């Protein structure tokens, strides 16, 4: 799809989010969480381009969320906390990335899973600092020095999420069409060739890995600002699985896929939980099975196919 069509769709989507959040106040929370998770999934999409799946990106999500929770005690400014948390996730991603980009496929996925579960255990066990499974509440947060509370807070964080999503989405869109982005896709099809062209596949993948950690971090920071309470569940493997789930649901064909997937996922979850409280996971599972069977390109693939047919 052309760059212009995708830009228009992204802006239309952003307008739709704002409209829905205005018309249905309780959706503000759901949509902000969806955008935050979509941001993390955008990072997963980068890794998927290289044919790699991480089952451990909840690590960066939770790391940044806890960084924000602890950070509010020191600096309550949201405009400082979010970039700082994203940066921290990126730095940790660089250190871990130097190690995990040496591995591929199941080994890559499992190593990420293992490291994220180590972090989960740390959050659970160091009770004196993290309050274990109880988690910690965020202190008061300000935005440009003004206290964030009530409806203003909801709108502010939603706006912040939209800005980050549009910004990172545009950056990823451009980067995927660059020589680096195409080399990243080359890791999936013919990695040895890159070496014999003088390109280091590990370095190419490391850049994607660090970027994915930063995006997961920003997503985690937004989640912390939205829920105002962080728990170790953010680092649990089911959260990582959720991100991969959303990536498949949305489709990896476009930067819009993750957000489409995240919105569909969160809305399905909310409605399924309300309608069939005991079986909402089953509903999600069936939805995913249907996507895999009938729309291998994800929800985005369905839209792209329809546009081509038209």
């Amino acid at each position, binding site marked *: 799809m052309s760059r212009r069509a995708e830009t228009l769709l992204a802006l239309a989507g952003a307008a739709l989010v704002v409209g829905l959040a205005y018309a249905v106040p309780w959706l503000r929370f759901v949509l902000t969480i969806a955008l935050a998770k979509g941001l993390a999934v955008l990072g997963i999409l980068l890794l998927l381009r290289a044919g790699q799946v991480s089952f451990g990106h909840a690590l960066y999500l939770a790391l940044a969320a806890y960084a924000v929770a602890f950070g509010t005690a020191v600096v309550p400014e949201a405009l400082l906390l979010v970039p700082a948390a994203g940066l921290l996730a990126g730095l940790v991603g660089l250190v871990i990335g130097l190690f995990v980009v040496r591995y591929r496929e199941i080994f890559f996925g499992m190593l990420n899973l293992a490291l994220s579960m180590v972090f989960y255990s740390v959050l659970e066990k160091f009770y004196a600092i993290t309050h274990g499974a109880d988690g910690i509440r965020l202190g008061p947060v300000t935005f440009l020095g003004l206290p964030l509370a009530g409806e203003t807070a909801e709108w502010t964080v939603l706006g912040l999420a939209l800005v980050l999503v549009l910004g990172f989405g545009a950056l990823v869109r451009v980067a995927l069409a*660059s*020589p680096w*982005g*195409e080399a990243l896709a080359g890791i999936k099809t013919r990695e040895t060739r890159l070496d014999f062209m003088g390109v280091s596949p590990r370095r190419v993948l490391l850049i994607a890995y660090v970027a994915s950690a930063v995006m997961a971090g920003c997503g985690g920071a937004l989640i912390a600002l939205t829920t105002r309470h962080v728990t170790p569940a953010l680092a649990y493997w089911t959260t990582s699985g959720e991100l991969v789930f959303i990536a498949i649901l949305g489709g990896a064909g476009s930067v819009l896929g993750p957000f489409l997937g995240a919105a569909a996922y969160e809305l399905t979850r909310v409605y399924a939980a309300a309608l069939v409280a005991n079986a909402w996971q089953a509903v999600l599972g069936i939805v995913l099975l249907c996507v895999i069977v009938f729309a291998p390109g994800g929800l985005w693939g369905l839209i792209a196919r329809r546009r081509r047919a038209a």
Partner: protein
Amino acid sequence: MSVLLSARDLRLAFGGLKAADGIDLDVEGGEFLAIIGPNGAGKTTFINMTTGYLKPQGGSIRFDGQPILGLSPRRIVALGIARSFQLPQLFTEHTVLQNVALAVAAREGRLSLMAPLLRRAFRDEAAELIGRFGLSGVAEARADALNEGTRKLVDIAMAVALRPRLIMMDEPTSGVAASEKMAIVETLVRVLRGAGVTAVFVEHDMDVVGRFADRVAVWGQGRIAALGPPREILNDPEVQRTVIGIVPAGGVHAPA
């Protein structure tokens, strides 16, 4: 002419199989050197050792006087040795143009994250090179949709895009229909001569060898059994018996 690549006493054994058992070879700058020999003689192993894919257990390799043994494939590419593969190694989900443009971008150094791959400079150079290989018609085709002969040429075009001084080609014509073979080789030789590239190529077709090689090296059990001009080597009864597998009455036709 000066020596471009110089291998001395290369040794490498896979278990009991000696793939290189004391290889000594000098490749002159500008020449086309053909490597012939039966399967398992160590021809591909020689290419793999000179391009950094395999590390010999003994011996030395110098490229333009500089020792390259133990360097990574990436370092060796940077020094000016490119290779093509017996089984073409293409980015199968990309178009031919993208494949070659990516090689051009790789040669230009650090891969950019912001400017598109198919920016004008890269697109024009890739398209021009694809044209020299006579592949303009398939430039927009996906690499996995091509026939074997075309994939071979794209594979070599990607190596040439790196502007190497030496290119190592592993069976550039295997899998190519007999009727297309000579046309493909002629294209190839024209492009390589035009680019002033020295070439070492493994080849099984003696007509191709006779027509395009300046010298022929005969591999046998990890050693060089014979080395010389094609007319001499291809008419050698021992080479005919062991490598070519025929005992012709009037010798092989090998034009000067």
